[in-house]
């Protein structure tokens, strides 16, 4: 017997993401889904962002990794509430994983939640977690071919943080190409050039991020 199904495959995840979103809204939380490859500098950027936003925003963090709790320990040391999710192999966070740990964060005392997704340029862009915005970190040492090789993440992100620009003189990377390709995939994407080592550009990024909260 033939049965019509006509169901979006990720519908269950999208439904849960909507529930998370409602919960975030009730708690007055602005939520960022921060994505990028392993080693792009997501956690370091987070540490720097936490320093810059001290006294301006009340932050909390969810750390997603396949295994280990190094990142959560680093964020904990930076002085904000953090919970670690170990996916045990899954290449991305999904809405269900997020709703499972929300009870462990003092949501009432926060107004901004940053979710650091699993290091991966592919899957995290596919699964909504209930965020207000997606942002991505790309280190210039990953090469200027990345936007055209991994288009979805660039299309989904509201901001692109180009990290490690202090290393430009030691590479043959073409930053203008990264910017041009990212903008042709997503004309609205906001691009920040930063160096987490020297601190360059972090101010602009942190201010922009904090400004998004009131939007």
């Amino acid at each position, binding site marked *: 017997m*033939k049965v019509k199904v006509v*169901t979006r*495959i990720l519908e269950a995840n999208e439904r849960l993401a909507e529930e998370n979103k409602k919960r975030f809204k009730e708690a007055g939380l602005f939520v960022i889904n921060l994505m990028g490859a392993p080693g792009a500098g997501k956690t370091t950027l987070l540490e720097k962002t936490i320093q810059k936003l001290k006294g301006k925003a009340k932050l909390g963090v969810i750390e997603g990794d396949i295994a280990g709790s190094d990142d959560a320990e680093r964020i904990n040391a930076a002085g904000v509430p953090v919970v670690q999710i170990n996916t045990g192999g899954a290449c991305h966070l999904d809405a269900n994983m997020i709703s499972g740990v929300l009870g462990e964060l003092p949501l009432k005392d926060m107004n901004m939640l940053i979710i650091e997704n699993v290091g991966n340029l592919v*899957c995290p862009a596919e699964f909504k977690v209930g965020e207000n915005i997606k942002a991505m970190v790309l280190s210039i040492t990953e090469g200027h071919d990345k936007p055209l090789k991994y288009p*979805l993440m660039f299309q989904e992100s509201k901001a692109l943080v180009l990290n490690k620009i202090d290393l430009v003189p030691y590479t043959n990377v073409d930053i203008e190409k990264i910017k041009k390709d990212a903008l042709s995939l997503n004309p609205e994407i906001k691009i920040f050039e930063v160096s987490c080592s020297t601190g360059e550009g972090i101010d602009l990024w942190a201010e922009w991020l904090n400004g998004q909260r009131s939007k």
Partner: protein
Amino acid sequence: MHEVSIALSIMDIIVKKCREESCNKIDSVRLKIGKAAGVMPDALLFAFDNIKTDTIAKDAEMIIDIIPLGGTCNSCKRDFDTEEAYVLECPKCGSADFVINKGNEMEIIDMEVS
């Protein structure tokens, strides 16, 4: 490899639907996957074949209809389809002003149950 998560979602949906129809065996399931949906059909088939053992879908065949990426150009007003996974300009007139209206699908269309 998010194809495993996707295969698990598909399994949840079709098993539930099969029970709703008071059936207890799934013989096949047909999907519509857009070229820009970020899903590798071969990886999805492989994942499905590996998770279906010990389920009521253990003999089920997964059929995937691939939907090309396509859109309508706001400049030349023509519709286009492409074999690429993303479009930077209208393949017919080169304009960057266009809307994508297909190629992101990820749906279960129907299934055979008994």
